[in-house]
């Protein structure tokens, strides 16, 4: 992202950012992204972000955990898979076959939860391209603190002229408009 020319609207209130996004989208401006220190309710809908498929991933991970949990117990505790080598574990005369399914419930349940949670965690980090030690692409050090940024590239403005864009976001409450140019190390301030 930092290698593109960018126009950045800076806000100090999430509601103002949300209104700007709604106004700009009505005028046909596609917005590259917004950066906020806290989740702003409905901003994803206003930006037109498609609902993530992470829920499907969570289900598949959970289902894998469920199957592996059951398989582990069938493999180690019953004779159905013909996996006993020498010592079947008969403890308290308890059954060694499908009759022990009720006592498989807790471990199967825990495996399902474990796989769902870690599966979704890992999928999230992959989708968000996050990893330990990654250098963040930060446009303003206050974007994780008390400032919200609205970011567009010049060609995303479409039919809206640059001065019109400025007046739309200023009237919606932007406190500052900047440009980011990868060729210059410092951002230009307006």
């Amino acid at each position, binding site marked *: 992202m930092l290698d593109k020319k960018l126009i950045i609207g800076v806000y100090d209130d999430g509601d103002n950012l949300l209104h700007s996004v709604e106004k700009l989208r009505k005028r046909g401006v596609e917005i590259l992204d917004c950066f906020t*220190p806290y989740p702003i309710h409905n901003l994803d809908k206003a930006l037109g*972000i498609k609902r993530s498929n992470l*829920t499907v991933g969570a289900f598949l991970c959970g289902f894998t955990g469920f199957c592996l949990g059951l398989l582990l117990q069938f493999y180690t505790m019953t004779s159905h898979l013909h996996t006993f080598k020498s010592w079947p*574990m008969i403890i308290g005369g308890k059954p060694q076959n499908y009759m022990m399914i009720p006592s498989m419930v807790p*471990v199967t349940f*825990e495996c399902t*939860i474990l796989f769902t949670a870690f599966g979704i965690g890992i999928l999230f980090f992959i989708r*968000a391209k996050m990893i330990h030690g990654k250098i*963040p692409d930060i446009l303003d050090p206050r974007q994780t603190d*008390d400032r919200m940024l609205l970011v567009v590239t010049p060609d995303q403005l479409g039919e809206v002229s640059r001065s019109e864009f400025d007046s739309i976001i200023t009237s919606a409450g932007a406190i500052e408009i900047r440009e980011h140019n990868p060729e210059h190390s410092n951002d230009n301030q307006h």
Partner: protein
Amino acid sequence: MYEAAIRKPLVTGDKSISDVSNDICRPIENKPTKMWWLGFTISFICLTIFVISIGWTVWEGIGTWGVNKTVMWGWDITNFVFWVGIGHAGTLISAILLLFRQKWRMSINRSAEAMTIFAVICAAMFPLFHMGRVWLGYWPLPLPNAYGSLWVNFNSPLLWDVFAISTYFSVSLLFWYLGLIPDIATVRDRATSKMRKFWYGFFSMGWNGSARNWHRYEIVALILAGVSTPLVLSVHTIVSMDFATSVEPGWHTTIFPPYFVAGAIFSGFGMVLTLLVIARSVLNLQDYITIGHLEAMTKVVMLTGSMVGLAYLTEFFIAAYSGVEYEQYAFLNRAFGPYSWAYWTMMSCNLFAPQVFWFKWARTTPWFIFIMSIIVNIGMWFERFVIIVTSLHRDYLTSSWAMYSATIVEVAIFVGTMGLFFTCFFLFSKFLPVINMAEVKSIIKSRE
């Protein structure tokens, strides 16, 4: 912006977004206060006691404890259940209250989750060292081994417990860490020293707060809350099965799972109150952890206290109604036998004392809440002691009846786990934001 006409603001003091960051990052960015050093030193001394007493146990063996052939579970398993119970409030607050959209959770979930993790670490120490040979502590894991098909026994509730506790610990840790990432990024971007920039940068995983990531993040948080909710209920259910699936009079009851879960929430909230009443004044967080938060938690304490009280009475009734003389004796022995002092301590701390929270004054006076939270902690420790020791010391065979009292080593280990818990908590309050800044920023009322 979250505003409700009929409710008081969740954060007081007209905080702006930057005030939230400044207030919550202050302990991280400044040198620790004298109060912090005092608390940390005391905790660290207790942690040293833990290391010494555990070292002595490993060196000498379990003979250093007071447990015997009849009462084979004493303070160790009492403390284990006590700490696991305390570990329930964190995930309950962050998961169940998230699903119920209870926004008051946002100021307290971070520290409650941290408490969960530290409490589960303390809990795990007891069964691990009670096994005697701690270096074989990996044996409960289902690992292929050199003995043919000699696997762990999946019919045993003790093994279910291994799975439940380890899943609970790792999922809680993930949930906690995921919640921390945006806040770690805030600390990273405010950092002035290279060291801080590096470490917080490393653990923030490149978080930049983009709207797409927030969208995914919220979905993940919701799914984790969804799976953590049955998980948190399952953990103490399975802990209770350690007892309930045996044929010991006093343990063999079907009421145990719901009764243990209610007890766990009760004791967990007790400990959260103990910590937060102190933390809010030491770290100057009265505007974030308001009297309203304390009041809401005391209501949960009263409700769950009444639930465990009801369970105590139901147990008694069922013992009488069952007509089983062993069961009847077990309960009469609890109330009027040699350990009756423990039983009545439990009853007064858990059933009677929390009823004081019917009065608004009691729910809104921090020093009083603090005393009550200590009483709840004591009561819940005694509940586990009563269940374990009074049931075991007199069962079917009168010739094997015995008494049990803890040795100095057992007491030292328990005090030591307190040290471990509070040392971790003090380090947490120094190096990580104790309040979820990102979430609190979304609910502050005034931004002007």
